């Protein structure tokens, strides 16, 4: 009986705490979000016509020689029509000792080498989220030749684009520099379609 009374008591207390943490607290953030609509809605990039191109924070698949390629994704950057309703994220979850990983990397390596791209680590290893927007500056440089050839642009021009699309580490120390592939490719498209 005491135990039941105790349960009732904690439910009454929880009702108030619930109001505080599951209603008031999120509402404050939603209001703040209303003041920061770009961030709050997923940093969406749109065309001039208002068509959503993607998110500045989310990677996209690229296969054309005219674009810089992103890192391998286990979920094809959430573009599988089957899951289009909700969006997904995910990784390969392959262990370093798993032969399947060695196989996949070998295939990837071959593919890159066929296009004359020097395989770098981040272009061989798939990302954690499957939505990684970045590649390493080295990987961008490795693809420079291919894209210049396809686009017929001067390498130096591309180098400065790469530089502009590079997100530096926090305080130039925490984390690694990353070239935002979507932003880079958008800049490419703006330069020549």
């Amino acid at each position, binding site marked *: 009986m005491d135990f039941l009374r105790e349960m009732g008591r904690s439910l009454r207390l929880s009702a108030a*705490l619930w109001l505080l943490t599951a209603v008031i607290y999120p509402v404050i953030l939603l209001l703040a979000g209303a003041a920061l609509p770009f961030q709050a809605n997923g940093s969406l990039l749109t065309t001039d016509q208002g068509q959503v191109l993607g998110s500045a*924070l989310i990677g996209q698949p690229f296969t*054309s020689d005219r674009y810089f390629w992103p890192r391998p994704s286990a979920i094809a950057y959430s573009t599988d029509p089957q899951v289009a309703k909700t969006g997904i994220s995910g990784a390969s979850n392959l262990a370093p*000792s798993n032969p399947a*990983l060695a196989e996949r990397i070998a295939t990837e390596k071959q593919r890159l080498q066929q296009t004359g791209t020097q395989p770098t680590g981040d272009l*061989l290893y798939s990302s954690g*989220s499957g939505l990684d927007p970045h590649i390493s500056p080295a990987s961008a440089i490795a693809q420079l030749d291919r894209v210049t050839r396809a686009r017929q642009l001067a390498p130096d021009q591309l180098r400065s684009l790469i530089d502009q699309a590079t997100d530096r580490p926090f305080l130039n120390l*925490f984390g690694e520099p990353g070239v935002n592939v979507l932003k880079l490719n958008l800049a490419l498209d703006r330069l020549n379609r």
Partner: protein
Amino acid sequence: MLSGWLQIALTLLIVGAIAPFLGRYMARAFQGPDWLPERWLYRQIRHRTDEPMTGGQYLRAVLASNLAIGLVGLGAFWLQDRLPLNPTGLGAPNWDLAVHTIASFLTNTDQQHYSGETAITYGSQVGILGYLLFFSAATGLAVGIAFIRGLSGQPLGNFYRDLTRSITRVLLPLSLPIALLLLLNGVPETLAGPAIASTLEGATQAIARGPVAHFEAIKQLGENGGGFFAINSAHPFENPNNFTNSLEIVAMLAIPTSLIFTYGEISQNRRQAWWLFGLVGSIFLGLVALSAIAEWQGNPTLAPGPNLEGKEQRFGWAQTALWAVTTTATMCGAVNGMHDSLMPGSGLATLLGLFLQMVWGGQGTGTAYLYVFLILTVFLTGLMVGRTPEFLGRKIEKREIILASAILLVHPVFVLIPGAIALAFPEQLAGISNPGFHGVSQVIYEYASAAANNGSGFEGLGDGTLWWNLSATVSMLAGRYLPIAALLLLADGMAQKQPAPATSGTLRTDTFLFTTVTGVTILILGLLTFFPVLALGPIAEGFALR
């Protein structure tokens, strides 16, 4: 390489700089007088919160409230398809997944056998899981504070008051600025459904979003770790850049590191607090180094450079290794890279964090485990100097040893036994996705994560099955409530003992020597228990890769 070590060192320096202040703040927050709105709250439940509870009463309140909240949460989760805020039209969960999920969030484990995007409505994320993030962290914090009080010879306090204060004075005030900073850096906070984008190459991309920022803040701060999205803090919307990454690491570490100083304040033993901070910090650094070296070396047979499989480019090997060890050491369980794809050295480091449970440890309970090890060390060393062992002047006797030992036993029982059963039937039960020694690690990690209330996983494991949902639920519940019961009774017993004054014949526990001995005891007791499975899991895998 160098910059990698530097960023790790700097992050830890920041934590070290915050902890003493936050520790002192928490001591004051829990020991001070009621605020007006709090008093109003207590009146609503018609309960004298200024009356301290005995260990048994405190425990009953913990169990009753957790059961009540768990049942209500379970019911609401079941009905999620009929509740508001469901823009993607998700259905109700399986009964076993529902039980596992609620148990998981209730026990501060946040092990997820589902993908957030495809299984949980916004309504459930905000209204059910969002509350459990606060409630479970507050429960742990309250128990930790009660334990510290008992150890210091004070009454345990009142659970409802401690629970309320955990939320009103610690978790909520800290979550709010963190959430705002996250939002500012691009973590979404919206009730709108997924955005549909047409990519530059013409594909259709579904971009999941939702009310993430507020969820993310308490998920990190409260040592919960249950991600809004399937891929947790590796997702660019949960952790968009290296500022948020560092912020989230510091948020994970903030409360468990500070609680050591809270202990120092409440027990008036600041010197020991510094020693313990140094001890746990050293073990933590050792684990980080083990993991960081392994990731930095990578797997040269596969690809040049550090291991980046399952890692995000923006974080790199150093931030991912630091995060992996931090999240397993603090029992948070959020990940910013995939643990299944970590090198065996990191697998070892993360598993050790889960086994030891006190390298900072979970919200409240981790600090308590630290003192349980301390009590066991005091027992052994006290004998060695020829006195009935005493801690803070209170004798360690049969009752204390029984309760401390019970805590020591919970982990092996609820990790090794189900692990052995699953591995005995690899086809039917285990759902192992990575063959060989790594398979052992996958299974053991899953149960260790459940029993330690961590929640991270070697996510390749096919864990969305009836067996995994139910067996992990058992491990989570046992790993949460049995130690809490033992801790509260232990603290209660200690509080009632008459303290003896310290003399030169008393073993001082705030010295370098004692602290070192404690460290070695922790490592030996922790390692000895799990050495065989570690040998057959990550250690054998490591040798195989060489």
